[in-house]
């Protein structure tokens, strides 16, 4: 249990690094305390805090990604959090390329969502509360990515869960958000149990939860075999919960009950990526267990196709996006599973931007049609809200994986490496999913913007204020360019350069042979294939939904009724959960409750009644008649005499 010293030399973080955490925290505390009195001014402090945070974050992220901080990254110990005997868990900050990648997404999208919310939430009574929660989330999320100790990561893990709970349940006077919030928190907790147990395992093995100590230990081969598999999978449980992978995916679609900016920030761009981050961060641990990798890949790719198949038939605009998020996260896990760590993070970044964009766009749409989310009640909106339309189109193309937009680059790398590392099945499914993605995204576009309008009162439909459109436009930029920016030239763009060292140990452990990237070779073919699939999906989608041909669609639906219903009802998975956990769980708990009252407490009261009834029985011998008493005495005398004679022998 003696800690193993980190192998890589670590630089020191600049002194202002803690501000990344303090600013949002202060913003939260301030707004929570005084926001109520500030009315419509309540956003100033939180927004300011986040903007500054963004600037600071960039000043760290960019060097980190471009190797400016050195391979080991930079860190700064703060204070000991929990200490017991020879174990102590300290809070410290650490920034390296991986952190940088996350900072990039988190702070950028975060800042934009704050700005966006100024407009989106302007009519809400508890405006201030929303911004307070947002800052609390930013604090937690940044703590999660910056922490250098897994216990702190776990803490942040729970805190983002809390913020997510608070924001999903933001409109607490309605019933649905309350339920959704509860569901989200509890489902996450299921994963966290595994996470916690995994951490305990690590403590027992390494005597520390300091990330570098642990990883160094793993790389030194201190953890192998079943133990490695078990611990890796336990930690993966946490990721599955937070990143809403099958079977813990159920909370994410419901989470759409929260305000749309929240969906964009937490449930698309940042928090749900925490799982990916964690697995990537612990890459050597997973690399140490082949089985663990397989399971990660399996769950990832299954979630990808499973969610996509559901997204096909959803009519709530935000739910479609939610399922597509699941699907895309599945992609990332598949990538992590096959050992394509860099592409996974790459996809995390690109997805963060374009999914954020899509969600904010959908928010703008909903805003435009007075909170309507059913796409069946939209249509033909492109003229009314052109900016929203344009930006969302960008996002759609990006996610569909059509070159040269962001999605194409990351998705292509994932599929490519999956194939090259011999995970043909992952590759195949991935291709299919790529096509499906393109299809359902254009279905979304079609139902929302094209064809003739199904909005009941068109007069109200209006473009959103600049506070909302500006973020859309800003986000459109990375959705278009960041793929190329980070991913070109192929297989050794900036990102690869930055992240390679991070994953080097893991890659080394897996010993994947890496031959050079060849445009006119296997890589080119794979690229061609993925583009083709995406295009096919796109074409079908556009073709079917460009203008209403309900008749034809109805026909198809009818022919595939069972499949359609299954997909529409999320393959009945929530009903299964409800049956097994809620219904049976309640029955079981009630049984215990009965047991508690009747058996456990019953015994206690039983003893009491027994005693008193014994008393009632015994008092009968007091007949009130002297001679009965005397007879008792006489026989007592005889008995005692007999006893003595026996004892005396």
């Amino acid at each position, binding site marked *: 249990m003696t800690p193993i010293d980190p192998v890589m030399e670590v630089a020191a973080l600049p002194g202002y690094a803690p501000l990344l955490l303090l600013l949002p925290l202060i913003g939260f505390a301030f707004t929570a305390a005084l926001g109520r009195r500030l009315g419509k001014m309540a956003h100033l402090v939180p927004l300011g805090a986040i903007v500054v945070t963004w600037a600071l974050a960039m000043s760290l992220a960019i060097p980190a990604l471009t190797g400016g901080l050195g391979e080991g990254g930079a860190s700064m110990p703060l204070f000991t959090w929990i200490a017991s005997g020879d174990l102590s868990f300290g809070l410290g900050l650490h920034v390296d390329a991986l952190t940088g990648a996350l900072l990039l997404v988190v702070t950028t999208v975060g800042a934009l969502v704050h700005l966006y919310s100024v407009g989106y939430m302007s009519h809400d009574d508890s405006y201030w509360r929303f911004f307070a929660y947002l800052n609390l989330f930013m604090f937690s999320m940044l703590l999660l990515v910056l922490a250098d100790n897994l216990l702190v990561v776990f803490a942040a893990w729970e805190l983002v869960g809390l913020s997510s709970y608070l924001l999903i349940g933001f409109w607490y006077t309605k019933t649905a958000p309350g339920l959704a919030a509860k569901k989200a928190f509890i489902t996450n907790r299921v994963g966290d149990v595994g996470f916690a147990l995994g951490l305990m395992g690590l403590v027992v093995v390494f005597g520390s939860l300091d990330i570098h100590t642990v990883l160094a230990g793993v790389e030194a081969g201190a953890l192998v075999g079943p133990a490695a598999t078990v611990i890796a999978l336990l930690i993966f449980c946490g990721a599955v919960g937070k990143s809403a992978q099958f079977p813990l995916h159920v909370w994410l679609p419901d989470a759409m009950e929260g305000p749309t900016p929240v969906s964009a920030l937490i449930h698309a761009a940042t928090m749900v990526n925490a799982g990916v981050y964690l697995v990537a961060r612990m890459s050597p641990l997973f690399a140490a267990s082949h089985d663990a990798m397989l399971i990660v890949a399996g769950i990832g790719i299954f979630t990808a196709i499973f969610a996509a198949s559901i997204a096909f038939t959803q009519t709530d605009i935000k739910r479609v996006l939610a399922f597509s998020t699941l699907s895309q996260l599945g992609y990332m896990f598949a990538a992590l599973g096959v050992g394509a760590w860099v592409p996974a993070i790459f996809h995390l970044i690109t997805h963060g931007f374009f999914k954020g964009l899509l969600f904010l766009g959908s928010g703008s749409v909903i805003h435009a049609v007075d909170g309507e989310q059913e796409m069946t009640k939209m249509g033909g909106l492109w003229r009314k809200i052109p900016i929203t339309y344009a930006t969302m189109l960008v996002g759609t193309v990006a996610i569909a994986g059509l070159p040269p937009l962001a999605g194409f680059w990351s998705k292509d790398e994932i599929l490519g490496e999956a194939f090259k590392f011999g995970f043909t099945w992952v590759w195949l499914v991935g291709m299919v999913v790529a096509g499906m993605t393109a299809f359902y995204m254009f279905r979304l576009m079609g139902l929302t913007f094209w064809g003739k309008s199904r909005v009941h009162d068109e007069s109200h439909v209006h473009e959103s204020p600049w506070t909302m459109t500006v973020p859309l436009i800003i986000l459109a930029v990375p959705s278009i360019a960041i793929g190329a920016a980070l991913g070109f030239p192929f297989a050794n763009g900036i990102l690869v350069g930055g992240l390679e060292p991070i994953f080097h140990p893991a890659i080394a452990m897996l010993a994947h042979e890496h031959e050079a990237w060849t445009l006119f070779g296997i890589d080119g073919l794979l690229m061609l294939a993925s583009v083709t699939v995406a295009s096919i999906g796109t074409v079908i989608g556009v073709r079917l939904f460009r203008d209403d041909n309900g008749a034809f669609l109805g026909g198809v639906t009818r022919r595939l009724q069972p499949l359609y219903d299954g997909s529409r009802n999320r393959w009945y998975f929530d009903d299964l959960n409800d049956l097994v956990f809620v219904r049976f769980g309640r029955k079981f708990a009630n049984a215990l409750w009965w047991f508690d009252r009747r058996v456990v407490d019953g015994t206690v009261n039983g003893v009491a009644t027994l005693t008193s009834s014994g008393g009632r029985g015994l008092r*009968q011998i*007091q007949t*009130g*008649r*002297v001679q009965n008493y005397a007879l008792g005495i006489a026989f007592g005398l005889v008995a005692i005499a007999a006893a003595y004679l026996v004892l005396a022998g």
Partner: protein
Amino acid sequence: MSQIAGHLEPYLVLAGMLFAIGSFGFLARRNAISMLMSIELMLNAVNLAALAFGAFIPSLAGQGAAFALLIIAVAAAEATVGLAIVIAIFRNRKTPLVDEYDTMRQ
């Protein structure tokens, strides 16, 4: 030569019998006065035993009588109080049958 009267045991056995008879009377008779009589029988049995011991156990020579006299005195005192109590309750209850004095029970 005597076969019986010269030995201690017969007297004790006689005392035992008398004691048993007395206790039977005490247990079986309903009338308080009869019960008092039975008690007197029992006390006399004790007296007999005391005297017998006094007569046959060398170290107790002469003490038997003294003990017996004390017992008689005690018996007299008991009887006095006993009768007084009987009279008192008879005044309240108008019956000497003790098994009817069972207001207090359980």
